[in-house]
Every structure is written in C-alpha cells, then in structure tokens.
C-alpha cells in the first residue's frame, strides 16, 4: 500500500488519509466577477507531474498538511505545513 508521510506521525498507510485538493488556492474577494469565481471554484491546472496538494491524516492525528507529489509516479518529494509558502 502507498505510504503517505504525515507531517506529525510520519509514514502511514494511504487508507488513513484524505486527499483534500490543490493547495495554495487563494479565495477571491466577494466583489469579483463570475469569471474569477468560476476559475477559483472549478478550473485547475491538473498537472501531469509535480502537484502541490493538501492532505489530512483523517484516521490518525487529524492534522492538515501540504505535500508535493508527482501525479505520474506518485512519488512524494516534500511535506510542509499548510501555513507555509510553497517550498
């Protein structure tokens, strides 16, 4: 089974985690246009390769964290706090 490195608990089985979407999406101000909100809500880079994403150790410590994962090899190259900027 794939192992995901929790920022708090270290390597654990994939089944303990929830993937929670692309990281670093900035919520636009409320007065922005439908186009801006549509982009924010639905449109994604969906890269083939490195992806900065948010995970949660749902069945463990419950911590949210970010990681960089390759969407082709599933290799995880970096784990960092949700409040940190992209490394």
């Amino acid at each position: 089974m794939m192992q995901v490195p929790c920022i708090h608990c270290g390597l654990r089985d994939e089944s303990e985690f929830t993937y929670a979407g692309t990281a670093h999406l900035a919520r636009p101000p409320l007065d922005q246009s439908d186009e801006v909100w549509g982009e924010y809500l639905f449109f994604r880079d969906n890269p083939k390769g490195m992806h900065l994403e948010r995970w949660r150790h749902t069945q463990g410590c419950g911590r949210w964290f970010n990681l960089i994962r390759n969407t082709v090899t599933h290799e995880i190259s970096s784990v960092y706090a949700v409040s940190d900027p992209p490394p």
Partner: protein
Amino acid sequence: MRYSAWSLLRGALSGQRHWPAAWRDASPKSSYDVIIVGGGGHGLAAAYYLAKNHGVTKVAVIERGWIGGGNTGRNTTIVRSNYLYPESARLYDFSLQLYEGLSQALNFNIMLSQRGLVLLAHSRHDLDAMSRWANAMRMNGIAAELLTREQVGELAPALDLSPQARLPVLGGFTQRRAGTARHDAVAWGYARAASALGVDIIQSCEVVDFLKENGRVVGVNTNRGRVRAERVGIAAAGHSSVLAKLAGFRLPVTSYALQAMVSEPIKPVLDTVILSPGTGAYVSQSDKGEIVMGAMLDLFPSYAQRGSFAVKQAILAATLALFPSFSRLSLMRQWAGIVDVVHDSSPIIGPTPLPNLYINCGWGTGGFKAIPVGGWTLAHVLATGRNHALAEPFQLDRFITGRLIDEAAASGIAH
C-alpha cells in the same frame, strides 16, 4: 470488404486468408479539414460521424499510442442510460440507441448484450432514492422497473440475499436495455468504418503543440511533423488538461485513476450487471466467463494507469460482501484508466476559448457508454461550428454561469 456470413463461407474455401486489414494505418499528410486529437472511442466515433453524417472525409485521427489503448480498453464495458436530469437522459439514451444499431451501422459485431443493469437498495433510504430515480427515468421516457428483493434474486441468484448479509438487499431497480458491449470492438468497428470512408488513422503520433495564427488554431505540431487543419477537436479523456495547457487554457477537470479487474473465467453465474451504489461495486460476467469488478476512484489526482492497493482492497471487499461465493476466485488482470472528472460529473462538448479548437471531455467514470453520442455531437460541432442540440447544455461556460448539471449527486453514481 463487407463482413457477412457469405464472406465467411467464401473464406472457408481459401483457408480464411482473404481478409484485408480492417483499417489503413496512415501517415500524417500536411493538411486536413479536421484533425481529431485522441484515437479512443470518442475520437474515432467523431471521425466516423464527420464522414458519415456530414460528408467531411479529409479527417485525421491523431493518437499518441495505439487506437483504443486508453480508457476505451480500460473500462468495465457497461452501457446504460439511467440518469436523472432531462439533459443527461436525452444525451445518454441517444447514445444507447446508437449502440443498439451499431453492429449493423458499422458492419462490425460490437457484441452488445442487453442483459440489463440491476441497482441494489441496501436500506429504506436507498429504496426511497431508487423510487425517485426510476420515476425520473420514466418521466424522461426511459423504461425502468422497481424490483422487490425476490425479483432481484430471480435476476441474480448468486447475490447474498440472506437477512444476515453484510449488505442486505431490500430491493432495487433495473434498466433492462442496459448491458455490456465488447469495448475493443467499439474502437475497431469505428476505426474500420471511418477508414473505409477516407479518414486517416495515425497512431504513434503525439501532439506536442497547437499551431496558431492570429489567435486561431490552424493545426497541430506533432513528433511526426506539422499538420494543418481548418478545425481541431480534442477527445483525450484524462489527458484533456495536458492538451489544454499546450493550447493555453485550463479546464475544470481533475484526472483520477479508475481501476477495475477480472477474475479467472468461470461458468456462467451472473447474466446481468449488478451495481451497488452504496459501495460503488459494479459487477458483471464477461462473455469469456471472467467476473468483471470495478467501483470507486482512487481519490487523489493521478496520471498513472494503475490503481492503488487500498482501493483495490475496498472494491474486492464490496464485491465479496455481495457475492460471498466469489471468494475463492483468483484475480487474473487489473488495470486503471485515467478519467477526466468535472465537478458536476457531466461532459463538456463544444468550443474552447480558442477559435477553431473544440473539445469533448469530462465524461469522468462514464465515458464508454457515451462513445456514440460523444462522437456524434463532437462531429456536429466540428462540421457545422454550431453545437448539437443534445450538447447545448454541456458547455464549458456552465462553470462560470453556475448552471451545472449535477449528475454526481443526482444519479448516486460513485465518483
């Protein structure tokens, strides 16, 4: 050559050595009227309908690998039209109608087997939801029948129907026109029919960029040279975002791996398709005797055509909860396709932000059943520049206007 009992008989005299290749493996020419990027079912069907319905025969299908080698060869081969909203019902039922006549239309046996689809209700709430669902289908003119537990048992006696079952079956509903089709035959049949009408099918040819002049798309740059065209269509499923990035825009798509697997072949035990929306388990028996199993997505983005063990385990656990007698079977093959999931689980068929570039994507976990209509509607917009009426509600701008067609929630299909 037309396939018929006569041509088979005639071949018997010559040792069946008279069969020509089913389609021409073409090399790219310098220009076409229309280029379709992606030689899966949708792309090949679009090429066929461009030639057949619209008389546009200077068409190239450009495929990075080999035709039908992507999701067309990596699904559970189920066809059905049990959707909730009128827009979806019209679209998917037209697809099923085309499937019903496809072997004749293509002169290629796609082995359509309308063995029916049975959806299982495991709770009172499931029963209520399925009544609503079946009634919605009937309102849209698509036959559906509610089933009692006994009726489910008659259709699928191998199910664990005992009261102490892990997932008790309280009833369900069926669409009897649903069933299975031979997935490779759909790709080969469309390829053969398109090729016979003059379409170039170009394999091992990867699009590396789009040619643009004055902001309009005028062709593609491939690893086998530049090819110009009046219009270009994309039918690349899980790789739609990769192509959109080359063209310079984004899509509301996330690519996930959807896996499925087959057991070793056994004698006939299941002659319908079973879907348990509660667990996502999707079980049928192939004509070769294998038990075909699929279920939920690997819920993190992926371009790897393999599934994770965690999800594989969940799919098998769900299948065995329904069919405990399958527990001794060995797994024979496992695969995953990269599916293009959008927020409302409905497709996108129409223009892109770039003039002359059109797209067919967003089918997510349900692309195989939609091959005929996906091809039909993409061909229409490529030939005429106007959306087909069936495709009108399924435009990219719905993600800006908010007019989503949320089949993810509506039809209760595991996404």
